[in-house]
C-alpha cells in the first residue's frame, strides 16, 4: 500500500487508518518487523551456556539461546517437521528442545539431534542436516543488548543504531560493570496498536500532567515529586526532545539527578550518583557525565524498544494484530549499584510502571481508545495531529540530533512517523534513508 499520504511530517498529521488497517499491518510485519533490528534479550538474562529466552520478532515466536562458546543464536520457535511450537516456557536452561507433537529433538545450536523411529519410519533417508531450526538471519550485541534482524541486507547493528548510541551509552556504558534486567517479565495485553505506546513514550511529555494526574497527586505525598519536576508542565524548558537519528529518539532532562530524585528514599541513590560521577564523566565526557547520567531519559530504538534511565524500566511491545499488543517490562539496573539500591529500583519500578503501576495503569485505556477511534468507517478517514512546536528544532552544542527544547513537544513523534513512512514506502533496505542529523563530527574522547 502506498503510504505517502498517510503521514505528513511537515505538518505533523497522520491518517487514523494507520492504527487499524489490516493490510497496513501486514505491510508493517514485512517492512518494519521483518526488516529492522529488533531487541531480543539482555545478556544478563541468558548468562550461561544453554540458557534460553523466548520472545517475538513481530508475530514470529523466537528462542534466543546462549551457545557453548558464549555466542548467542536465535531461532524461530517452530518445529521443522509440522510446525509445532517447540518451547512453551518463558526462559530457562536446556540441553535440548523436544517437540511435543512427534518428539523431534533440537540441540541448543539449532541442529536436529534426534528423530523418533528415524530408521523404521523414514528408512534412514531423512537428511537431518537440512532440518535444523531456522536461524534468525543476524544476531548482534550492543553493550549487553542483543538484537536480531531477519533482513540479510540490513546495515550493521552499529550503523542501525547510529547516533542513538550517544544516548544508549549513558545507560549502557557509564559504569564499568555494565547493566542488567531484573526479575520475571511483566506482561500485559493492551487493545492498542503498537505504534501508540511507542509514540507516547518517545516524545509525549504533554500527557503526563493530565493522564497521570491521579498518580501525580497521590505519589507526591510519598516524595516522588521529582517526577513532575522532570516531566510535567511545571518545567517546560528543562529538557530536550532529540530525534533525527535513524528513527531513534531520546527525551532527556539535563540536571543529572532527576531520574533518581523521586525515589521514596532518594538518599542512597544520590550518594551513588555523587560517588560515581567522576567515573561517568571519565567514561562519557563532561556533557553526558554531568548532564545526562542520572537524569530522567526516555530512549526509543525504532521500532519497539524503549527504556528509561531514572524510572529504570525497560520495555518492548510485541504486535498482535493492528489493534492488539503485548507489553513486556523489566526493571533495569547498573551492575555497580549496591544490592539494596537494585532491590529498591525493582520495587519502585513495579510500583510505578509495573502491572499494577500507579502511573502505567493510566495509559492503557487512552491508547486503546485511540486505536478504537480509528476503526470506524468515518473515523478511519480522519486525521490525528502531532504538530506541537512544529519548526522549532535545530542543533544544540554538544548533542547529536535535531533537537526541540523541553519535554513537552511533539517533535519526536513526528520523526517516529517519518521513519515509519520511510520504511513502509521502501521496497528494500537500499531505499531506506540513513540519517544522523547534526552528527557530532568530533566525538568526545572515551577517556578524557
Amino acid at each position, binding site marked *: 500500500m502506498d503510504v505517502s499520504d498517510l503521514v505528513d511530517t511537515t505538518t505533523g498529521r497522520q491518517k487514523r487508518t494507520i492504527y487499524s488497517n489490516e493490510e497496513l499491518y501486514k505491510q508493517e510485519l514485512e517492512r518494519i518487523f521483518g526488516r529492522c533490528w529488533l531487541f531480543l534479550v539482555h545478556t544478563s538474562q541468558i548468562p550461561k551456556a544453554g*540458557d534460553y529466552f523466548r520472545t517475538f520478532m513481530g508475530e514470529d515466536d523466537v528462542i534466543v539461546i546462549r551457545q557453548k562458546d558464549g555466542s548467542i543464536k536465535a531461532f524461530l520457535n517452530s518445529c521443522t517437521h509440522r510446525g509445532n511450537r517447540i518451547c512453551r*516456557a*518463558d*526462559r*530457562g*536452561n*536446556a540441553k535440548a528442545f523436544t517437540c511435543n507433537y512427534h518428539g523431534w529433538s533440537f540441540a541448543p545450536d539449532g541442529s536436529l539431534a534426534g528423530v523418533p523411529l528415524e530408521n523404521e519410519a523414514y528408512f534412514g533417508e531423512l537428511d537431518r542436516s537440512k532440518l535444523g531450526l531456522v536461524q534468525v538471519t543476524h544476531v548482534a550485541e550492543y553493550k549487553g543488548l542483543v538484537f536480531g534482524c531477519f533482513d540479510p541486507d540490513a546495515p550493521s547493528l552499529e550503523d542501525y543504531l547510529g547516533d542513538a548510541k550517544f544516548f544508549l551509552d549513558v545507560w549502557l556504558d557509564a559504569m564499568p560493570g555494565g547493566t542488567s534486567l*531484573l*526479575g*520475571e*517479565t*511483566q*506482561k*500485559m*495485553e*493492551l*487493545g*492498542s496498536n503498537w505504534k501508540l505506546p511507542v509514540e507516547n513514550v518517545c516524545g509525549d511529555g504533554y500527557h503526563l500532567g493530565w*493522564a497521570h*494526574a*491521579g*498518580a*501525580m*497527586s*497521590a*505519589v507526591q*505525598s*510519598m516524595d516522588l515529586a521529582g517526577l513532575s519536576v522532570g516531566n510535567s508542565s511545571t518545567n517546560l524548558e528543562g529538557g530536550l526532545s532529540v530525534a533525527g537519528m535513524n528513527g531513534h529518539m531520546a527525551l532527556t532532562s539535563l540536571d543529572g539527578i532527576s531520574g533518581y530524585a523521586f525515589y521514596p528514599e532518594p538518599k542512597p541513590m544520590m550518594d551513588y550518583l555523587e560517588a560515581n560521577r567522576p567515573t561517568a564523566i571519565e567514561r562519557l565526557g563532561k556533557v553526558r557525565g554531568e548532564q545526562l547520567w542520572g537524569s530522567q531519559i526516555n530512549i526509543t530504538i525504532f521500532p519497539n524498544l524503549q527504556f528509561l534511565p531514572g524510572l529504570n524500566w525497560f520495555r518492548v511491545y510485541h504486535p498482535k494484530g493492528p489493534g492488539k499488543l*503485548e507489553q513486556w517490562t*523489566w*526493571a533495569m*539496573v547498573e551492575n555497580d549499584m549496591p*544490592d539494596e539500591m*537494585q*532491590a529498591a529500583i*525493582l*520495587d519502585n*519500578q*513495579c*510500583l510505578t510502571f*509495573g*502491572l*499494577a503501576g*500507579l502511573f*502505567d*495503569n*493510566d*495509559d*492503557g*485505556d*487512552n*491508547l*486503546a*481508545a485511540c486505536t478504537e477511534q480509528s476503526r470506524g468507517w468515518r473515523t478511519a478517514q480522519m486525521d490525528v495531529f502531532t504538530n506541537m512546536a512544529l519548526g522549532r528544532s535545530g542543533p544544540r552544542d554538544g548533542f547529536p540530533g535535531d533537537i526541540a527544547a523541553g519535554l513537552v513537544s511533539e517533535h519526536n513523534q513526528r520523526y517516529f512517523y517519518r521513519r515509519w513512512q520511510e520504511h513502509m514506502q521502501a521496497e528494500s533496505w537500499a531505499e531506506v534513508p540513513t540519517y544522523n542529523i547534526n552528527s557530532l563530527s568530533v566525538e568526545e574522547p572515551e577517556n578524557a
Partner: protein
Amino acid sequence: MLEMNPAPVLVEDMIALTQRLYHEARLLDAERFEDWLELLCDDVTYRMDLKRRRFRADRSPPAAVGAGVVFNENIARLKLRIDRLRSGYVWAEDPPNFVRRVISNVEIEPADAENEVIVHSVIVIHRNRIDGLARQFTAGRTDRWRHGTQGWCLAARDIALDHAVLPDSNINVFF
C-alpha cells in the same frame, strides 16, 4: 491442605472469617476503601509476586535480586493507592466500572501464632469496563488473619495471580 488431625478450628471462627472475606469483597465492590482499611492490621503485608513460567525439569536459579512483584504493599502503600483512586483523576474508573468479586474455596488452618489463622481462598474479579469490555482476574489467596480486641484483622495476604499475561490494561482493584 488440612492435616488429618489438625488443631481444631472453632466453628465460630470459621463462620466469622468466612463472613469477613465476603464482607471485605462487598466493601471493595462498593469502593468503600476506608471501611476496608479498618479490616487490616496496621502491620499488614499485601503481596502479589510475579510468577516464573518454566519447564518442570528446569533447574535455572531464581532471579538474584528477585522476581519482581505486582503488589508489595504495607498499609502506607495501600493508602497511597487509595489516594490515587480517590483523587478524582483516575479516568479509567470514571464512570465507575461494574466490579464484582466472587470468593470461594475458603479453607482455614491454624497458624504458628496462637491468635492467628491461615485462610486460603480463591477470588474471581469480574469487571465490566468500557461498553462491552468485560475482563476477569482469577487468583488464589493465602491470608493470615489475627484475632484482637476488634475481632479479626488481616495481617498478611499473598496473592497468586493466575495469568501469564495480564488480560487488561490496569489493575485498579484490590484482591
